[in-house]
């Protein structure tokens, strides 16, 4: 039983381990797989990333568009706790249940999606000692589990029984098939390059050169398909406010809407983790003694934050594509690019 070592809080942990009732609980929480699920890269990491990203998205868009963004709550810190206050508001709002909806699916799917969508985090490491379930095929498992999001979104839209939700659902299905092949191709070309689906070996193969430089085509592909998959501009087709009110989430309100909104950001978090592991050299960086086992997680988190900030920043810069343009990009440009990236990877293997 390996306990996660953090020299910074070592004395506190040592003291707590000696306390009668709290000791075993602390030991359980510091156990490697449980720590990975609860703290990093699990729930706490997700929560921090979520709050920061939502704040940054509004703030960056505001700055670029000559506005201020959220400011009134905690004015001195630039309104950084605005997402927390939004969360409280969502929790206190009434959940409206329209008559027309398919009630069991309408109520259960967002909750199920929220938790089931977290399953890829079980297979993603945040450092050499921070992983919940280790198999040599972790990256493939993550890529397969990612498609649960789309199933959940289609189920939500179908259960809502609403015009906008229906259009949004159909759009989701169309966009999904157009980016999924290219995304899979970009991941598979990296797996060919590293000759493994094991995240630890994938990271250690990038010690000389990050994957983004080894195969730029696959990196570009992964960035574009992630923007498509997480509904970022310029590919905000599914939940485009001016076309379909909120797409599959139109009928949801209160806490349910909070959950559905979070699901998209969860997907962005997981895909950013995957991109940092596959293309940006994972957790490589100078070792920080104070953080101990969290030092790799710190460097990985740095990359994830940068990626999430980049994807949010796109909202400030781009207008939106039409659905047919996105499908054209997906089936023409990205498919051609994925063939190129596969060829580049094979060339690396042969050389």
């Amino acid at each position: 039983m390996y306990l996660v070592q953090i020299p910074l809080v070592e004395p506190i942990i040592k003291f707590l381990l000696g306390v009668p009732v709290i000791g075993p609980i602390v030991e359980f929480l510091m156990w490697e797989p449980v720590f990975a699920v609860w703290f990093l890269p699990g729930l706490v990491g997700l929560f921090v990333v979520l709050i920061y990203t939502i704040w940054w998205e509004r703030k960056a868009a505001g700055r670029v568009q000559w506005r201020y963004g959220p400011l009134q709550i905690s004015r001195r810190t630039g309104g950084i706790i605005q997402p927390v206050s939004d969360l409280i508001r969502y929790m206190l709002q009434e959940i409206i249940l329209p008559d027309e909806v398919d009630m069991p699916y309408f109520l259960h799917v967002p909750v199920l999606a929220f938790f089931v969508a977290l399953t890829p985090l079980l297979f993603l490491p945040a450092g050499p000692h921070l992983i919940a379930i280790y198999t040599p095929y972790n990256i493939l498992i993550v890529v397969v589990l990612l498609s649960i999001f789309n199933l959940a979104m289609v189920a939500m839209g179908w259960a809502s029984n609403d015009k906008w939700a229906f259009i949004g659902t159909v759009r989701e299905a169309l966009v999904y098939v157009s980016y999924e092949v290219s995304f899979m191709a970009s991941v598979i070309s990296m797996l060919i390059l590293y000759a493994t689906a094991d995240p630890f070996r994938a990271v250690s193969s990038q010690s000389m050169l990050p994957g983004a430089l080894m195969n730029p085509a696959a990196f570009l592909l992964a960035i574009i398909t992630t923007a498509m998959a997480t509904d970022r501009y310029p590919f905000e087709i599914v939940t485009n406010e001016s076309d379909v009110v909120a797409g599959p989430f139109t009928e949801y309100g209160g806490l349910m809407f909070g959950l559905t909104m979070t699901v998209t950001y969860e997907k962005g978090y997981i895909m950013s983790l995957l991109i940092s592991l596959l293309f940006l050299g994972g957790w490589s960086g100078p070792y920080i003694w104070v953080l101990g086992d969290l030092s790799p997680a710190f460097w990985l988190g740095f990359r994830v934050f940068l990626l999430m900030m980049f994807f949010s920043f796109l909202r400030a810069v781009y207008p939106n594509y039409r659905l047919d343009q996105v499908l054209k990009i997906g089936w023409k440009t990205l498919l051609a690019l994925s063939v190129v990236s596969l060829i580049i990877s094979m060339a690396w293997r042969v050389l």
Partner: protein
Amino acid sequence: MIKVTAPKSDGLRITAYHIDALLTGLKELIKPSRLTIHYPLEKRWTNDRFRGFIINDIEKCISCFQCAWACPVNAIWMYRAPNGKFYPGIRYEQCILCHFCVDACPVGSLQGTTIHDVAFPDLESTVYLPEDMAKPPNVVDEAKYIVKYEVENGNLIMRRIPRGSK
């Protein structure tokens, strides 16, 4: 008939556009050239002769009706006072703050002020009777800065001036 055709897609040009858009966004992110003001805490600088709320000095008023005649939107109603004279009262729901009435006043009893940001709780309070016209409306002013827009080398810039200093 003009037939609209899709522009030819040129990969290199499109890439250049994308990079240009991202760089422009980055430039604005680092140093935004925004002109927005925090309204209750900052206020725009106004000219001394800015056309705002109108006050009336009943001592000077000769009840000549010229202001009511001049008003283009019929916002001025004349009310009969106990002394038999008529005095103007303005309905700010209709008033467009054109100050034609101030210009029309032969004795200078109507005077303009620069107060222009007033919120009314309901429709009834927009009707000002002659006795309400004596002094300017009671406005809570929490502005610490006065914002002035200026043109410098062809660029519009904003300058914040602390309230006390002129």
